[in-house]
């Protein structure tokens, strides 16, 4: 059976539009070194490296793990590269956990990154491949119609998305690493920001960031010797479904529902709103908070927006179930790392190391990532208690 594994070190970079001071290796290294320092370890302590990032075309470096071997101290060690679209940061963490849970490795480093400023993330991928679907209106062009359908079904007020956009930026203002620092943001400012893909406004969409995130994961014995509180990995789950098939439920995808049920079962969670102290959930467009509140079982179907509007997910309103205390994807979005940041921030909460965005007394937290056409999911539950 699976061995217990825990996060004992977390490292992140500062997230920015363009990190002008570092190479790709320098960016990745910064997060990795911070994670080692946080764990009180050195490069020689690491048994293996598991790297994740979104498409190679973002940086134009094919299989960058080959070039990054030296920056990650991996010469002579095992290196694996995961790619599961936007969910990759989460999937990579889960694969890294399996290195330790399998008993094959004692202590591994996992890293994910994106240096989006090297290209243009939205359009670098819209290459003119012949005979392929002709219309590309960016990620928002894909997701906005799904959001519209959510609004229709749920009768949500028009400003539920605006509320999320404000809430996550206020959270981000507590997190010095967050890309967007908008401590004065108001509902009106979001509402007045340019419409991009109706009903999505500019300030309801995520930024494009450079950044990297890393974690050190160890087995039970080594975790118990680590300097900080370990974040015990209580459950991990992944689910995939095809992008397009007849009858696919796109607003509330089955893969997300199944993934959440799986991870809750492993972690002994029966009522996520009650049993979890906070959640870091991949919300790249504001409306995905109410949608995922329902998908992940925090609210009944059609009622997610009520939770959002009530302030339940806000640190600043003393909500009972803060979502994205770090500021979330709406505050920082280095795509390949965004999922791992959610997983790492969940770990920092239960380790009591979240600083200015710490949820008081957080013991158990959810990390969530999704990708592709909302078809790839990865989730974990971490806790300060072994369970």
């Amino acid at each position, binding site marked *: *059976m*699976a*061995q217990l594994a825990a996060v004992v070190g977390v490292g992140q970079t500062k997230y920015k539009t363009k990190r002008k001071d570092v*190479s*790709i290796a320098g960016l990745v290294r910064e997060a990795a070194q911070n994670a080692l320092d946080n764990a009180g370890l050195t490069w020689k302590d690491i048994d293996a490296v598991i790297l994740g990032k979104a*498409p*190679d*075309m973002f*940086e*134009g*470096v*094919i*299989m*960058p*793990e*080959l*070039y*990054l*071997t*030296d920056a990650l101290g*991996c*010469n*002579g*060690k*095992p*290196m*694996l*590269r*995961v*790619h*599961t*679209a936007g969910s990759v940061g989460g*999937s990579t963490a889960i*694969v890294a956990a*399996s*290195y330790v*849970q*399998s*008993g*094959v490795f004692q202590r591994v480093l996992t890293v994910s990154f994106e240096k989006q400023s090297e290209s243009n993330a939205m359009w670098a*991928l819209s*290459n003119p*491949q012949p005979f*392929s679907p002709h219309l590309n209106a960016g990620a928002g062009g894909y997701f906005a119609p799904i959001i519209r359908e959510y609004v229709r079904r749920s009768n949500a007020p028009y400003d539920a998305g605006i509320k999320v956009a404000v809430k996550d930026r206020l959270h981000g203002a507590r997190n010095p690493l967050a890309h967007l620092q908008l401590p004065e943001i108001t509902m009106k400012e979001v509402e007045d920001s340019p419409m991009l893909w109706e009903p999505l406004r500019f300030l309801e969409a995520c930024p494009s960031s450079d950044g990297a995130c890393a974690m050190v994961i160890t087995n039970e014995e080594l975790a118990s010797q680590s300097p900080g509180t370990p974040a015990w990995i209580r459950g*991990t*789950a*992944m*689910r*995939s*479904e*095809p*992008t*397009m098939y007849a009858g696919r439920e796109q607003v509330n995808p*089955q*893969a997300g529902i*199944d*993934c959440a049920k799986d991870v809750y079962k492993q972690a002994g969670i029966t009522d996520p709103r009650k049993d979890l102290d906070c959640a870091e959930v991949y919300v790249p467009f504001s409306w995905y908070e109410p949608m995922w509140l329902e998908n992940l079982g925090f609210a009944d179907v059609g009622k997610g927006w009520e939770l959002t509007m009530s302030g339940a997910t806000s640190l600043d309103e003393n909500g009972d179930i803060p979502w994205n205390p770090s500021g979330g994807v709406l505050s920082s979005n280095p795509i390949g790392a965004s999922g791992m940041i959610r997983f790492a921030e969940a770990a920092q909460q239960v380790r009591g190391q979240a600083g200015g965005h710490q949820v008081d007394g957080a013991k158990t937290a959810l990390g969530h990532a999704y990708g*592709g056409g909302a*078809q*790839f999911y990865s989730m974990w539950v971490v806790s300060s208690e072994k369970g």
Partner: protein
Amino acid sequence: MRDVAIVAYAQSDCQGNAGAQNEVELIMPVLQEVYKQAGITNVQDVDFTCSGSCDYQQGAAFAFVSGVDALGAVPPIKESHVEMDAAWALYEAWLKIQTGQAESALLYGFGKSSPGELPIVLSQQLDPYYLAPLWVDSIAFAAMQARMMLEKGLITEADMAEVVARSRRNALANPHAQLKGEFSVEQLLAEPMYESPLRKHDCCPVSDGACAMVICTVEKAKEWGKPYAVIKGIDHRIETHHIGSRDLTRSVSTELAAEAVGVGNGPVDIAELYAPFSHQEIILKKALGLNNDTVVNASGGVLAGNLMMASGLSRIGEVAMRLIKGEGKRGVAHATSGPALQQNLVTVLEAQ
């Protein structure tokens, strides 16, 4: 470690140009074949699925997303993907089985290399500041490596030709092979240089295709009542990307992986080595400590057809199928990635 059983393996033909077959059309037939071999209906009958592919082969981002369309992943499945050869997808799945979170897994690797200029495409996997802007093709690394071997007296051109002649001959018995035939060493040595000291036949061809495999716990294999081969050990290592800091006449990372899985702990009857260039087979044999009692690349190896992103998993599948057929008791399979064998994976397999 738990023993893990390989119960099914299938590979498509290595085609120089698969033309109008897209990735899904390449993957589906090999999936159907492994389902049949394993006696299962579809992807819903395994606990985990993992694949390997590379977006740059065909020049389209998210190649693996269309791969998912071949699976029938409704209801949703537990699935992952490595942007690597599918041998590393096997590794991920093997770990998953070790954790006890899965009892069985489906693996596949696929790619169409023919649409691009592969040696140039692969130049973009090099250091992005020092090497990629020079467009150093993948053959150049192998050629400089071969010259070092030749000039240090570690191999002769005849040794390289012998590897090719044996590959072509062995491929005659492999229906999926792309290049096959009877050639003498003399005939091959009479061919002109390509990127010297490599002749064209010293380099693997460009191929399109896919392969798939089903693995499971030994208990599950018994329950399914299918013959199987057992993965006794699997390990992979990478080495520095700084080409000047490597001894190119050796494969240090293969040596480390071989040591970790105990290749030398018993006789090796058969081996399949992912050697895209003839001289690399000789480097790898040495790194793995194989002697002449081992039958190497009975399939013809990748010199007879190289399904990038599937070839590594294919090597493991080839050994497993031969062990199941009784061609040996213990075998070794190897996979590689990166310039001049930068990253290597070694598996030890045993007959049931």
